[in-house]
């Protein structure tokens, strides 16, 4: 793992994406294929099933160092990362022992750890830590507990591999899509010459992602070359019809097989070798609009939904693109042609498989008017796509735009704060906000983003100086500061103290011009949720 630790260090040390790409490409060229395969997996965000709980890690650290539990907790709160806290608290050793290759850790050691009894596992962890350098302890803990974030996007890993293999990045993205099982042969195959049947098999096509429209819609020019569709609030998915049956891939490239049997049944009647891109939505029969996202969430969580859930919350696939038909990759064809083929393919298969209707418009102004109906139609706004656009790979600006409706906003008071993680560790950056219910402030939303570094620093100092009470890492503060929050949706919720739940809350601005009495009232939010 020493070589991987060196790669990690060089990635962690630079903010330059080209330097990171070069470092990874050099590593891929240099490292043994069986280790490089796991590096691709881990850097791309892949993780093994968690084999040790954070409690076990803490116990092992306490046993190994003799530090009190509370001191370990205080240190963890300060660092914001358990893997790192452990690496900093263990005694340092010089890194001269024998090296255990990355693939041995991933294929043999970590899986074996999961099979031990808890007590043995704690002993094993201590034994593993002892000869390792601080960097390797950190990496080992990260591999044990979850993802390793090193400022490297999946896309950058793809680019580095493409650079190493001297192949186009889009092809590399496709070769890595879906479930990628690390192994020496699989890694070497990434660099193989392009074949005609690249797209056959179970791997999904890399998704084409739209960009948010940040300028006036008129800047897109004439409306004629564009088609508008609703921006559905569901799960983006690829439905693949293969000889063995139907496969469903999420946008996160995870298999959703079994979760949506009605889609798989409907797909069984599709011709073999076709691939549809669309949005899975929960939609009650004979309703004009989809159910709220919360209804769909019940389905996502269920690996094998029962008859009752299937009846209460049926889903459908709102299809908007056709990537493959009769085994032919259609991605280079214009959208107008793909949509026409999709319409023919799905004729008579509604409502379970239906085409997302295009919204006719002769000018932007009338589209803007229609966009105003988004909320009552339970959509997030409009999608604008160029009729002649190919189906690209990843987020490429220019052809596909999401034109979302303006968010809801609320003025709320800062009530609680707790330290953030990663680059915000040690700073109070995770905030809870409340609104007035009579003469008390009740918490309604948590938000983490929206302030700049200067504001975060200022607020952090203020929180430290104005803490009223502490509950573990959480501090309650004197209600003083008002913030304008934005959110996408609101609905009644029995699980939340305030009786409402907001979706995607974030901070728009620090309202230094408002006093806490100017904050909004819970009744206003309840009314919004009811409407």
């Amino acid at each position: 793992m020493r070589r991987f630790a060196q790669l990690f260090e060089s990635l962690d040390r630079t903010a330059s994406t080209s330097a990171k790409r070069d470092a990874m490409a050099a590593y891929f060229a240099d490292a043994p294929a069986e280790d490089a395969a796991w590096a691709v997996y881990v850097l791309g965000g892949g993780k093994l099933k968690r084999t040790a709980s954070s409690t076990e890690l803490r116990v092992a650290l306490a046993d190994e160092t003799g530090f009190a539990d509370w001191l370990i907790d205080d240190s963890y709160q300060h660092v914001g990362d358990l893997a790192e806290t452990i690496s900093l608290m263990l005694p340092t050793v010089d890194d001269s022992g024998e090296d255990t290759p990355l693939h041995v850790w991933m294929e043999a050691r970590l899986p074996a750890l999961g099979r031990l009894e808890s007590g043995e596992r704690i002993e094993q962890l201590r034994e593993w830590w002892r000869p390792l350098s601080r960097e390797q302890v950190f990496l080992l803990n990260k591999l044990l507990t979850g993802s390793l974030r090193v400022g490297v996007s999946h896309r950058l890993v793809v680019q580095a591999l493409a650079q190493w293999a001297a192949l186009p990045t889009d092809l590399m993205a496709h070769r890595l899509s879906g479930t990628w099982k690390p192994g020496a042969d699989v890694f070497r195959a990434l660099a193989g010459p392009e074949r005609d049947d690249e797209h056959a098999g179970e791997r999904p096509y890399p998704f084409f992602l739209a960009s948010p429209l940040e300028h006036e819609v008129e800047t897109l020019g004439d409306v004629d070359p564009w088609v508008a569709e609703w921006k559905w609030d569901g799960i983006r998915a690829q439905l693949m019809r293969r000889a063995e049956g139907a496969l469903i891939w999420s946008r996160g490239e995870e298999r959703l097989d079994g979760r949506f049997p009605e889609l798989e049944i409907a797909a069984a009647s599709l011709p073999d070798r076709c691939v549809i891109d669309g949005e899975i939505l929960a939609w009650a029969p004979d309703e004009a609009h989809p159910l709220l996202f919360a209804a769909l969430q019940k389905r996502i969580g269920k690996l094998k939904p029962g008859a009752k859930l299937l009846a209460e919350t049926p889903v459908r696939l709102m299809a908007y693109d056709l990537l493959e038909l009769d085994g032919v990759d259609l991605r280079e064809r214009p959208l107008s042609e793909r949509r026409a083929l999709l319409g023919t393919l799905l004729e008579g298969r509604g409502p379970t498989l239906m085409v997302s209707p295009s919204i006719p418009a002769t000018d932007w102004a009338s589209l803007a008017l229609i966009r105003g109906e988004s909320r009552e139609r339970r959509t997030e706004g409009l999608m604008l796509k160029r009729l002649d656009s190919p189906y690209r790979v990843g987020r490429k600006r220019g052809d596909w735009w999401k034109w979302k409706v303006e968010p809801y906003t609320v003025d709320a008071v800062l009530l609680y704060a707790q330290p953030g993680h990663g680059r915000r560790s040690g700073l109070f950056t995770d905030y809870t906000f409340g609104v007035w219910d009579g003469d008390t402030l009740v918490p309604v939303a948590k938000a983490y983003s929206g302030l700049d570094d200067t504001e975060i620093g200022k607020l952090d100092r203020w929180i430290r100086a104005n803490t009223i009470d502490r509950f573990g890492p959480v501090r309650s503060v004197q209600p003083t500061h008002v913030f304008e929050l934005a959110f996408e949706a609101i609905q009644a919720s029995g699980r939340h103290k305030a009786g409402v739940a907001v979706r995607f809350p974030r901070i728009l601005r620090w309202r230094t011009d408002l006093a806490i009495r100017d904050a909004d009232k819970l009744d206003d939010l309840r009314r919004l949720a009811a409407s």
Partner: protein
Amino acid sequence: MDTELLLPRPEGLYCPAGDFYIDPMHPVPRAVVTHAHGDHARSGSGLYHVARAGGGLMRERLGATSDIREFEYGETFTLGDAKLSLHPSGHVLGAAQIRIEGRGLVAVVSGDYKRDPDPTCLPFEPVPCDVFVTESTFGLPIYRWPPMSQVIDGMLAWLDDCTTRGVPAVLFCYALGKAQRILAELALRTDRTVHLHGAMVRLVEAYRDAGVRMVDTQPVSESARGKDFAGELIMAPPSAAGSPWMKRFAKASTGFASGWMQVRGARRRRGYDRGFIVSDHADWRGLVKSVEDCGAKRIYVTHGDGEALIRHLREKGHDARPLRSLGRMPDERSSEEGD
């Protein structure tokens, strides 16, 4: 009563027995100053008492017209009913712990200190006492300083890498103490010239005048306009980061030398390319060791919130308390100042 020797007041830490303040934040008639950093040495007081080794730096900071009395380390002097002496704290050149004897008690105010070796100043001297006042800037066991030789290895490797890539290496660090310590450590390993930001020049000269051996330095302002700094090491205070002054060093790789660089999140948040763990404060082990070495009956903790250190010391059987339990005084440091 401890408050007869140490009484926190709005102006700073006051000694009633001797009628003087330690590191006052506002002008007072009589001050004893531990070291020359800006948050400890403030101008405007009537009379200053400092360690002779730091006299030059103090005059630099407090102004040549200030009334400054210098004492050798260990030399005894009297203020009011208190007998005082100054002892090395190992923090920066001339930094002192203050031993105060009076009313049947011995108190030591250690100021800022460290236990790691530093070629620019005398090492921390454990002073037996009844009452010990300690800082706790880095009061968690995650702070454990690596050997300086290892840090210098990292810096030289970074410089080599910058040379290969043909870019300047700009290292940010405190202008007083940290900069000179690094220059002195570099002198043991290399003879390359280091370029200095203007804010460091006079302080480096003050250290040279005090006999500290450092690598050759050259003010950036004296380099020809348009000089290529590729592969050169430039040192600057953190305030220069992101300022127009940086325009001379296009594509520079940036580093920051600070104890805070121990934590990855803090390193990434600051946005420097490289973090070097160098601190002039004690790490956790240094704090605990110093408390044990001085054998004090009571320990007062200041700077940083100190809660973890206090609890840890209490669990080990020490009578440790926050200094603010004796009275309120402003701690004007924000959470991450002092490094």
